């Protein structure tokens, strides 16, 4: 468990990467650690590629993780995980949701989506990569939009974070409106159990 940790979250607009990064950073602050984030907000949020940078314990630096600097890659989507892998450290760790979000360019046949090759490519990277089907778990929890809570739950069970899983869940539920807390609580727990 390091007290300095750079986490890169890669996904698709609408998957809740912004919330996930804020939860990690606030949980770090609550534990007396410094934290900052940078997010993609704006046009790309309409189903475009988005990245959130979370930097825990870095005092004087900016919010963006340098190339090959991320300790952890949290991929909410396989193609986006590959797009972001230039940022991960050779000694890093990746946790990737294997369920693809196929852009309409793929459905229209104007753009490729070689899922298997992407998966193989990620596996062949000299970093430790774990796959999880966060979409399925989110659906089991009750709403496919809770992928971000599944991913946070799974990440918090790896022992890599300088913050306890319970603290992360508390912050997550606090940041969500009352009516969706139950389903996100379930999603977080399913994610946490998934890597056991």
């Amino acid at each position, binding site marked *: 468990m390091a007290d300095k940790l750079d986490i890169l979250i890669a996904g698709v607009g609408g998957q809740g990467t912004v919330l996930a990064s804020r939860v990690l950073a606030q949980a770090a602050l609550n534990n007396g650690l410094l934290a900052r984030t940078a997010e993609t907000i704006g046009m790309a949020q309409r189903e*475009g590629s988005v990245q959130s940078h979370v930097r825990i314990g870095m005092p*004087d630096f900016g*919010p963006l993780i340098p*190339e090959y600097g991320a300790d952890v890659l949290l991929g909410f989507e396989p193609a986006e995980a590959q797009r972001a892998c230039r940022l991960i*450290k050779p000694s890093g760790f990746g946790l990737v949701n294997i369920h693809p979000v196929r*852009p309409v360019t793929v*459905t229209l046949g104007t753009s490729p989506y070689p899922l298997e090759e992407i998966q193989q490519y990620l596996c062949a990277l000299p970093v430790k990569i774990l796959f999880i089907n966060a979409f399925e778990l989110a659906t089991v929890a009750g709403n496919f939009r809770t992928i971000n809570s599944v991913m946070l739950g799974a990440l918090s069970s790896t022992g890599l974070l300088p913050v306890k899983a319970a603290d992360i869940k508390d912050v997550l539920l606090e940041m969500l409106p009352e009516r969706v807390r139950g389903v996100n609580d379930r999603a977080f727990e399913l994610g946490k159990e998934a890597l056991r």
Partner: protein
Amino acid sequence: MSMKLLMGNEAIARGAIEAGLNFAAAYPGTPSSEIIGTLAEWAEEFEYYVEWSVNEKVALEVAAGAAYAGAYSLVAMKQVGLNVASDPLMSLAYIGIKGALVVVVADDPGPHSSQTEQDTRTFAKFAKLPVFDPSSPEEALMMTKDAFELSHRYGIPVFLRPTTRVCHATAGIRFSAVEKNQPEGFVKDSKWVIFPRLSYVRHQWLEEQQLKLSREFDSNRWNYIQSGKKIGILAGGVSVLYVREAAAILGIQPAILKIGNPYPLPTGKISEFLDQVEEVVVVEELDPVLEEGLIAVAGQKGFTGKIHGKISGLLPRAGEYSIALIKKVLANILGMPDSEEITPESGNEKAPDLPVRPPVLCAGCSHRASFYAVKRATKNANAIYTGDIGCYTLGNAPPLSMVDTCLCMGAGVTIAQGLKRVEPDRPIFAFIGDSTFFHTGIPGIINAVYNNHPVKIVILDNSTTAMTGHQPHPGTGKKAAGTAGEIIDPVQVVKACGVKFVETTNPLDLKSAEAVIRRAMEFQGPAAIVMRAPCANTFKPVRRFRIDREICSDCGRCLRELGCPAFYREDSGVKAALQIGPACHGCGLCSQICPLGAIKAE
């Protein structure tokens, strides 16, 4: 107390409150929108007034009026918003204010969500107004407070110029006590009435302030030297942080002059810095504002060392900077190897091709239906479609391909008129969103009537300012702080502008929408169609659609013509059957075009 994670924009809002804010106005624009969004949430607790104004010129003027009466006033906008507000701004620099006026203008190097990469520091220099340029959310809060203090003391508007990586970054923030300012009220005086003679006198006064400000900035807390060796780096904004990290990675200790007030430049500080270094690299995103200033000082004092930057061709003027770029440049200058680290990809075969993932209209977006209805009604008519700025700009993408031009807010209806004069035989449709209509659409519509340009104006009324995060606008009747206001109906406005053909329709009812468009085309003269259906992002779907596999022949027409992102095929290829996924928002548009009636509500 533990620190609260705040976005740069939230930190700016908090800084304004701590400074004693009385009045805030803005028109939304990425990356600035959350400043007023946050102020709106806290308005009741801290007792200031906050509004979404109809555009940036209006926002600046109402904020200036409040400051004339002694209020501590803030106006916020994105960088291109300042173009709209530039007329009042230029005169206001001469006239000055009482109270305080902080003009927050968010720049967007990249750009991530903007039509230009203009640099507000250059604008500030043109307007001769001081600027604070924060590097982080923490600095943004403190600089906001200092900006209010400076504005009050000098009686002039002061800029705060955060960039995307400050606005949309977050950091742990500690709150301080909140000051109170009691506005004195407006006092009649000839100094508030601009006349050529007064302008001359005030111009002289403004020039004198430049020198005073420059001296003050020489010694305030935002412009300082971090001593080091060998090479000197002059940097401002978020670039300072990239410089620090790049230097740490390279293991070097350059001397760094951090400039937080890029205008009027603290030339004394720069001169002091040049005495300590042999060679300088200037690192700043966008325009070479610091670099030009440094070169002038260097010339005056006969500095003979090398000056690296944009002017020397080393660093780019366009786009966002990164740690990697700065690391490479520094390594290059110092003759160090930019140690190509062992990368995760090394040893790996070629990476698979990735899908392109452009932003698209949401599943169920009513704009898709509007575009599609116009497309059908104008099939083979050789029409031109002028677009404007908002979510509906995304209608340019295939398969809709319904935006032929997009320039700046309000320009869709006016460009259409110029096109129509030169191409009188082609139908010209101008699309404009409802917020854009109120922002700068109305004068263009009056022009179409007055000069009789027979263009067809399609007002996309989705009851929100969607692109920038769903802010209310005059058509919604909701105000910034959530209270109810007067509803201004675009239909009544357009009629009052003298448009003789005005019809309202729901674009999700494809047949009637098409019929309305055909009638508008037949009408001789400017015509307006109000397409009214709420933004899909503002309500929960009540139904979903699915494809009945028994009936569907997989002709692919729904997908090919609409490109709704809810459609997908299981295997990414064209072999697997077309399906509608859980993202369906239930708009029902696809069900209206399926020739076999295979798409049904669940």
